[in-house]
């Protein structure tokens, strides 16, 4: 007699595809100095995707407020700088929308300064700009932030090092192994070719996918320009890792 169907269902897990060659940075990239003392030095152990890895935290509309996604409306006054809309879709590699997933973002202000105690860049803070947002994607995987275009800023990685303007994005996806933190860059930024973080990704096309595109259709007349940034999370393997065919 077969085991109960229920038990077979619970042990059949469809894993996620591993990242495509050269699309993800290595841990050690000496051009980015901080990797040297923080990258693992011993071999990684291959992790099968079990129930623990294909599940992950589930968030809901209670976890976000509407002002969380409009960074120009989080204070009494208006922040300084160029207002922009940043929007796009979160999809998986199979082009399926990642629905109702938490998206977090943070960034510098228009002058290139973060509201953070260790940022001592000699540029002004903006009392009306925190630089932090979050939103839950809709049923089609769409998200939309209204914010201020961040400024470039110097860092101490090497002589006269400047980070290109960027917005940090944190994505949860549906399963834990879809988790992704990345940075969105802006089109035509001359600092990109000098930036070790951007260049830590060896595949040129993969690098270019981190650059947003100017998005005329999402502009708000007389108010804001717009950039589009679609983010792709891992997709499911075509077949379950183990099948029960008893």
């Amino acid at each position, binding site marked *: 007699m077969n085991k109960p169907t229920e038990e077979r269902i619970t042990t059949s897990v469809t894993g996620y595809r591993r990242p495509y060659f050269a699309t993800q940075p290595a841990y050690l990239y000496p051009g980015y100095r901080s990797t040297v003392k923080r990258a693992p030095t011993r071999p990684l152990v291959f992790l099968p995707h079990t129930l623990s890895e294909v599940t992950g935290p589930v968030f809901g509309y209670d976890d976000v407020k509407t002002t969380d996604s409009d960074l120009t409306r989080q204070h009494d006054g208006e922040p300084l700088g160029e207002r922009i809309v940043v929007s796009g879709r979160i999809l998986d590699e199979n082009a399926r929308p990642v629905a109702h997933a938490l998206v977090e973002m943070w960034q510098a202000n228009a002058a290139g300064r973060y509201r953070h105690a260790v940022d001592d860049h000699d540029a002004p803070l903006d009392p009306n700009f925190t630089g932090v947002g979050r939103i839950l994607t809709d049923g089609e995987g769409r998200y939309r932030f209204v914010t201020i275009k961040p400024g470039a800023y110097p860092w101490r990685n090497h002589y006269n090092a400047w980070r290109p303007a960027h917005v940090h994005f944190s994505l949860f996806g549906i399963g834990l192994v879809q988790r992704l933190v990345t940075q969105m860059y802006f089109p035509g930024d001359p600092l990109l070719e000098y930036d070790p973080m951007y260049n830590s990704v060896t595949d040129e096309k993969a690098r270019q996918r981190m650059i947003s595109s100017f998005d005329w259709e999402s502009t708000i007349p007389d108010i804001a320009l717009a950039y589009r940034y679609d983010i*792709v999370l891992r997709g499911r393997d075509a077949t379950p890792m183990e099948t029960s065919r008893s």
Partner: protein
Amino acid sequence: MSLLTTSSQTVGPYVKIGFEPFTVVELAPAGVAGERITLSGRVVDGDGKPVNDAVVEIWQANAQGKYAHPEDAQDKPIEAGFRGFGRCLTDAKGSYRFTTVKPGRVPGPGGALQAPHIVVTVFMRGLLKHLITRLYFPDEASNAEDPVLTLVPADRRATLIARRSPNDKVALEWNVILQGQEETVFFDY
């Protein structure tokens, strides 16, 4: 397949402003069933220095071994108020701390049960992509047959097993060592 996964980039030195608003260090409010534990430790870099700008996230099943997620089809109850997700930013000493309940065993490949474990994700400046590791519990006979722990070379397994605090029965201690002889096992996920 039609698309490729977006490249990972580091959280950078200012991750605190982005992640702190969604900090969760107490996972199990009153009323959630299970053995209460505290879990704490330090994150240490290749020079043995505390990492004061790291973020530790944890993901776990409830005490029954059930994940609060639609793909966990086991016929077991989920618990109101227990999401199973924690996030802690390390302090000046590189320390993190959670209070939660000990997870139950969850199914693994082939239907065998996994030993109780917590999946741990670590972010910081200097990590171009996050690390994933697992925390296991001391004095667990099932560790010996866990389908993931047994993939780890035997001489490194101890790096994934928390220690019971000598002073406090419910306290577990576990450090994330980024490099060196005692380097924590990290997974290729």
